[in-house]
């Protein structure tokens, strides 16, 4: 039979026992691990999509290259594309080089900003 009254002194002692103080750094540690934790670069579903696409591409590459004469056919196809785009012509290549160097030169330019006028209060 349980008699809670038998434990009056003990209950009082337990009630008077102060809770142990956590280390001062605990609050900051918890906040760093939760609220201030940097968001992951990728979400889970993004990783799944990327993984699936990579696996699909891998399987496709393996399938294509395992076809008979795949290397020759792919090389021929690439050569056709290059010829259709006119990339075998020296004239086209020259203009492409000019365009690329112009783009690079423009990207290196620093345009001075005009000084901002302060608004009177």
């Amino acid at each position, binding site marked *: 039979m*349980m008699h809670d009254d038998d*434990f009056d002194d*003990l209950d009082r*002692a*337990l*009630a*008077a*026992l*102060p*809770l*142990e*103080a*956590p*280390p001062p750094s*605990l*609050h900051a*540690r*918890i*906040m760093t*691990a*939760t*609220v*201030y934790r940097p968001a992951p670069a990728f979400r889970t579903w993004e990783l799944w999509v990327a993984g699936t696409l990579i696996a699909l591409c891998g399987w496709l590459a393996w399938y294509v290259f395992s076809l008979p004469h795949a290397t020759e056919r792919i090389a021929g196809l690439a050569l056709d594309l290059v010829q259709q785009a006119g990339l075998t012509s020296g004239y086209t290549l020259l203009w492409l080089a000019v365009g690329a160097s112009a783009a690079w030169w423009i990207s290196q330019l620093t345009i001075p900003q005009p000084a901002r006028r302060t608004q009177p209060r």
Partner: protein
Amino acid sequence: MEPPPVAAPVVDDQALIAAAAAGDGSAFGELVTRYERAVYHLAVRTLRDATEAEDAAQEAFFKAYRALGSFRPGAKFSTWIFTICYRCCCDRLAKRKRLSGEELPDRADPSAGPETLAERNDEALRLRAAIDALPEKYRAVVTLYHLQGRQYEEIATVLNLPLGTVKTHLFRAKEQLRKALSA
């Protein structure tokens, strides 16, 4: 003459949880402020290791933060966070036992026998040592009981035990405590 300072209204846990779940970091910070002491106390009494208790308390709040969306409205946050914390502690105790065979959950700590207790004059220290010397299942019940205002029902929920078992454990724990303190 300046008007008297107006006391900031005390926001209840439910509102803080709702705000934290909606992304309000300061609301979660307030919940941490309210419960970190009690959670740490539960962890340190269960694990009997201050460093590991700190880790367990952090882990408990981390798990709670991640699961805020699944918190049942109307439930008590204290019950929830104590349950998470106690599970974290049990996992750590099980891991500790696996690694070293050091702690058997139902066995008392032999290092804190009556002789050791007698050497400790301070009543609080003696009581703490006596609690530490209890078997794990009794220690958890006494610790939760000691966290002011924890009712039998809440202890039963946290420890996943029937109400009757909680009462029995508490009675036996108190018996052992009284015996240890009078030794």
